[in-house]
């Protein structure tokens, strides 16, 4: 779902340039112009590819969904294509060294194409502007990708590492959004919490305040919220005492909006893109709404001479916060599907996946081998960030942000537009 993804908020300068330069409205294709005489949109899609074959329900933890398989996966003995493998991913969301190792092992090139927000990524895959072999969608888009036949089912025989290394619940019964993992393997998993500076806020104090720290006038001017409606409104709903993080209740959304405006106007809270992983270690912020992966990544942004013990992460009791994850899929239009399977299996390899996590990304893959205790013993994750390590139990107990219907999403977006307008 748009606006709920960690990487969305990691704008590098280059990305920003791209976005600034990127056209506002894509020019229509010639065929679209020729089709202009009939009223578009009378049929469901306008482009006619929809055919509304299967209406798939929205997946939630309570109502998990098995995505229908409408085409065959590739045969297990498909020869491995020569490169290049096209990976369509968030910018800076994979360790280049791991990619280089894949290139070397398979003797192929990997072309990494990036998107700045999920909206852009999905649209380019949907209208064929980009034809990747591997794509990294947020799970909230999965249902619609399958409905429109834009992703292909996975050939499980080619991905043995899924059963070998990933939390068993991801394959049996499979995650709530894709029972039986017909289409996806997990890439990273992260929780929502509060990042804070331990040199300014004690652990006990942070735990006692909880979400309210983001509304504490004591930290005026040093509070960061994510510039992303799905995250910040949902977190504020939890702060306001509800666990209905996918609410359709206008009153809850309105109360969240009022609260967000309150901390912006009275405590100079800032909506940021890099508040947690860059500005908090630099000392600009004291408390921040945070994804666990961002605070783990923050240790590499600390100024020289500052120890990792200044970073703290608080997450509520199990079941009181949200957990999210990203997946790897093979688009239906992939030109090198077998190589794509190899890549997915490669990323689920214990060594490569862990390398990607601890040496670059900060975002954790759901591997059975990754244990909070071991990570801390090895010094990969500082002890004070132990809450940032995600465990399989959390995936069962925590809340999940799911896809909102367009009507509900419109209420969220209206509230967010008002916040962004500085009204």
């Amino acid at each position, binding site marked *: 779902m748009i606006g709920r993804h960690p990487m969305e908020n990691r704008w590098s300068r280059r990305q920003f340039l791209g976005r600034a330069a990127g056209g506002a409205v894509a020019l229509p294709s010639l065929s679209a112009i020729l089709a202009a005489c009939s009223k*578009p949109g009378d049929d469901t899609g306008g482009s006619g590819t929809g055919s509304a074959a299967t209406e798939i329900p929205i997946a939630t933890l309570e109502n998990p969904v098995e995505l229908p398989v409408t085409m065959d996966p590739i045969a297990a003995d498909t020869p491995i294509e020569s490169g290049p493998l096209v990976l369509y991913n968030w910018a800076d969301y994979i360790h280049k060294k791991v990619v280089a190792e894949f290139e070397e092992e398979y003797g192929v090139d990997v072309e990494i194409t990036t998107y700045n927000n999920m909206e852009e990524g999905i649209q380019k895959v949907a209208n064929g502007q980009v034809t990747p072999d591997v794509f990294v969608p947020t799970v909230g888009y999965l249902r619609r990708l399958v409905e429109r036949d834009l992703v292909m089912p996975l050939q499980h025989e080619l991905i043995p590492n899924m059963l070998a290394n990933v939390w068993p619940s991801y394959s049996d019964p499979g995650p709530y959004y894709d029972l039986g993992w017909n289409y996806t393997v997990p890439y990273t998993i992260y929780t929502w919490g509060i990042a804070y500076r331990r040199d300014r806020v004690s652990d006990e104090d942070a735990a006692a305040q909880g979400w309210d720290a983001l509304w504490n006038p004591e930290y005026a001017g040093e509070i960061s919220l994510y510039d992303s409606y799905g995250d910040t409104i949902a977190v504020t709903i939890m702060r306001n005492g509800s666990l209905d993080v996918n609410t359709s209740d206008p009153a809850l959304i309105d109360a969240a909006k009022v609260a967000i405006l309150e901390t*912006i106007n009275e405590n100079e809270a800032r909506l940021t893109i890099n508040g947690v992983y860059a500005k908090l270690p630099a000392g600009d912020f004291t408390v921040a709404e945070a994804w666990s992966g961002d605070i783990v990544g923050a240790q590499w942004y600390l100024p020289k001479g500052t120890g990792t013990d200044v970073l703290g992460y608080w997450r509520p009791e199990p079941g009181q916060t949200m957990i999210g994850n990203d997946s790897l899929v093979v688009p239906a239009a992939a030109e090198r599907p077998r190589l794509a399977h190899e890549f997915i299996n490669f990323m689920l390899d214990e060594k490569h996946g862990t390398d990607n996590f601890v040496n670059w990304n900060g975002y954790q893959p759901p591997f059975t081998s990754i244990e909070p205790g071991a990570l801390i013993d090895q010094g990969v994750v500082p002890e004070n960030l132990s809450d940032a390590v995600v465990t399989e139990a959390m995936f069962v107990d925590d809340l999940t942000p799911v896809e909102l219907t367009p009507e509900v999403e419109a209420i969220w977006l209206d509230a967010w537009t008002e916040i962004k307008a500085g009204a």
Partner: protein
Amino acid sequence: MPEIAAPAAEAGGSRRRLRRRRESVAQPGRDGGVWYPRWYWPSFVAPGSVWLALLFLLPFYVVFSVAFGTVDFGNFGQPVPYYAPWWWSFETFNETLSKFYEGTAIYRPPLFRTFVYVFSATAICLVIGYTVAYYAARAATKYKGLILIMLVSPLWISYLMRIYAWQGLLEVDGPINFLMQPLGLGDTNWLAGMHVTVILGLVYGYIPFMILPIYASLDRIQESLLEAGRDLGANGRQTFWRVTLPLSRPAILAGIVIVTLPMFGDYYTNDLLGTTKTSMFGNLISEQRTQTGGSTRMASLVLILGVIVLVPMLYYLRETKRAAEQA
């Protein structure tokens, strides 16, 4: 004016040459007349017209079609433009427009801010820009080239990079606050949504575009005109007000238009130096870009902004026309 006379003579020269060549193909029936094919002169307009049609009119029409079209939520909220005007639906457009005046009017504060910021920034640009241009054109005889290079050289670095540099300079414990300490402003949080930061950011970003046309105009004012002013008894100040300033008026207007129009649509200055408290019109548009199904609202806002910037544009056109008539 001699400057204009010179290129005219040149053009005349080439025309003569052409004529000589053409005479050999001239129709025998037309005695002494010069024959050009009917398409000959209009063809000179063609590149401009094609450019205008392909890169302005057509995209602009698409913006209309998107604004008055719909979105397909079954297809990831992609826009479904209505190209045929008879299908146009004004629902989203009217809804967007109503957010400027109805109920809580959430779009009004950014609109108001945009006007205040743009007018303040333009005024500051004009005062500083004119002074610098005047100095470069009149006083800095020896260093004219150097000053020009210094004016243009920041443009070699991306605007974005320079604004990022400002972020560092404006931090609470940054150099600006260090310099402000004697004034008792040493702990100002410049980046926490202060109007003055965004206005100065706009001034910084656009001032070269104010200086350059004014400089070009001042530099071309002939010394003899100023001397004539002095000969007729005007002192230095009077010469400035009655000779230099009127002569540079078209350049001032051009400079104002060049900086004002993009400032109205600017969003990245505020993205990088401000907060939501200093949101401008451009930020409203860029925010819709990241929203599922936001394209119709975005196109509607673009059209509304288009109407707003049409006002200074029309004023400029009227003024330049009047100036041309006077000349």
